[in-house]
C-alpha cells in the first residue's frame, strides 16, 4: 500500500462528490484536469470524489465516465494519480492498492523539495464522525433524499457551520466553518515532523498558520468551489483555477 510518495509538481483537489445533486463544477474540473495534464502535474484526489454514500449507482454511473476519462488522459501523459479515500467513498478502502494509473491510499506523506507534506481527507478528526460513526453514516445516507429534492438545503447547513464557528473564541486560529479539532490535528501532525498539512472533508476553504513556517490548508469542496492546493518543489499554495 502506498503512503509515501515524492512529487515536485502536484495538485490536490477534494470533495467533488460526483453523483451528488449539489455538484455543479464537473465540467470545469475536467477542463482543469486537462490543463494540469498538459503541464505535467501529478494529481491527488483528497477523498469524497465519488459520492457513494448519498446517491444511487445509476446517478453515479451517469456522472463518473467523463471524470474517469480525464484521469485516463492524465495517466497517459505520465502523471501520477493518487486517490486518498474519504468518508463518502469509504467503501474504496477495500481497494487500497495500485489500479493502473490510479493509486489508492488511506493518506499520503509527500516529500517535495525537502518538505514533508501530509495529505489526508480528515474525517478522522471530525468530532461527529469519531464519536457517533453509525449515526453519522445513517444521517449522511438519509440526508441524500432531501438534498436530491432541495439541493439548496446544503447552503443552510453551510451557513449554520459558519455561524457556529464565528462565535468560537479562537475563530482566528481555525478555518471559518470548521471545528477546532482539524487545526488541533494539524498541529499534532506537525509535531511528527510534517511541514504542511492538507485536509479536505469540511468543504471550507482556508489556510492556517501553525507557527514556525508550517501551515494547514483546506482546498474546500471542488463540487462548488474553484480552490485547489498546489505543491511546487516543496512550496505549498492555496489557489483557484480560472473559469
Amino acid at each position, binding site marked *: 500500500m502506498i503512503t509515501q510518495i515524492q512529487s515536485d509538481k502536484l495538485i490536490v483537489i477534494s470533495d467533488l462528490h460526483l453523483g451528488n445533486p449539489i455538484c455543479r463544477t464537473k465540467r470545469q474540473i475536467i477542463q482543469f484536469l486537462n490543463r494540469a495534464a498538459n503541464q505535467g502535474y501529478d494529481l491527488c484526489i483528497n477523498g469524497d470524489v465519488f459520492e457513494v454514500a448519498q446517491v444511487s449507482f445509476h446517478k453515479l454511473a451517469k456522472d463518473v465516465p467523463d471524470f474517469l476519462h480525464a484521469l485516463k488522459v492524465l495517466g497517459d501523459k505520465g502523471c501520477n494519480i493518487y486517490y486518498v479515500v474519504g468518508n463518502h467513498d469509504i467503501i474504496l478502502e477495500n481497494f487500497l492498492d495500485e489500479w493502473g494509473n490510479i493509486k489508492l491510499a488511506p493518506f499520503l506523506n509527500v516529500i517535495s523539495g525537502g518538505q514533508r507534506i501530509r495529505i489526508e481527507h480528515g474525517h*478522522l478528526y471530525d468530532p461527529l464522525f469519531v464519536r457517533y460513526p453509525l449515526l453519522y453514516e445513517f444521517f449522511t445516507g438519509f440526508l441524500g433524499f432531501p438534498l436530491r429534492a432541495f439541493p439548496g438545503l446544503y447552503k443552510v447547513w453551510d451557513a449554520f457551520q459558519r455561524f457556529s464557528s464565528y462565535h468560537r*473564541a479562537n475563530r482566528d486560529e481555525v478555518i471559518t466553518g470548521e471545528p477546532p479539532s482539524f487545526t488541533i490535528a494539524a498541529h499534532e501532525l506537525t509535531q511528527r*515532523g510534517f511541514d504542511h498539512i492538507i485536509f479536505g472533508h469540511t468543504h471550507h476553504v482556508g489556510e492556517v498558520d501553525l507557527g514556525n513556517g508550517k501551515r494547514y490548508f483546506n482546498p474546500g469542496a471542488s463540487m462548488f468551489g474553484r480552490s485547489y492546493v498546489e505543491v511546487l518543489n516543496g512550496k505549498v499554495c492555496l489557489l483557484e483555477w480560472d473559469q
Partner: protein
Amino acid sequence: MLTSKRSGAKSLVKNGFDRGKSIYRWIGNLILKNEDNRFAHELVLDFDDGETIFTEADEDREMYIVQSGEVKITKRFPSGEIYIATITRGDFVGEMALLESLPRSATAKAVGKTRLVVLQPGGLLLKIRRDPTFAFEMLQRLSHRIRDTNEQLFNALQRGISADAIQQIVQGSEFTSSQVSAPKP
C-alpha cells in the same frame, strides 16, 4: 417618549445579546482551554551532533519521534560497535523498549542538530487516539523493518552463512523473548 422606550428596549436587547455572546465566548474559551490541556503537546528534546539519546541496556522506556535531524543507531559487539541504521525525520526510535518494557537493545546518537518528540508509555494510547494514522504508520514501518531484517538474513544465507547458524539465531531470539516475557519472581 415612545422613541426612548424603543431605544431602551433595543439597548436592553443589545446588551443582553452582547452579554450572551461574551458568556458564549467565555464558555468556548474554557472548553478550548481544557481541550488544549487535554491535547497538550508532548515533551520535545533537542540534541547536538553526536549527543547520546539513549545507550544500550538503559532501563528507560520512552519512545522518540524524529521531528528534525537524524538519529544513528549502533550496537555493541565483542568486535566493536556496529552501525545498524539511521532514522530520519518523521520516523521513530526506541519503540521496542516502550512496547516490550525491555532494556534498550541498541545505542542512539543524534546526527546534527536533532529535535525529538518524547512519547512516554502512559501517553502512547492517547497519542494514537489523537493521531490515529500514527498507529498505522508505526505498524507499516515495523513491518518494513521485519521485511528488511528477513532480507538481511537471507542475504547472509546466500553469502555462505549456514542455514543452521541462521536457525540458531532465529531460535535464540525466540527463546530470549519467551524467557523475558515470563513473569519475574
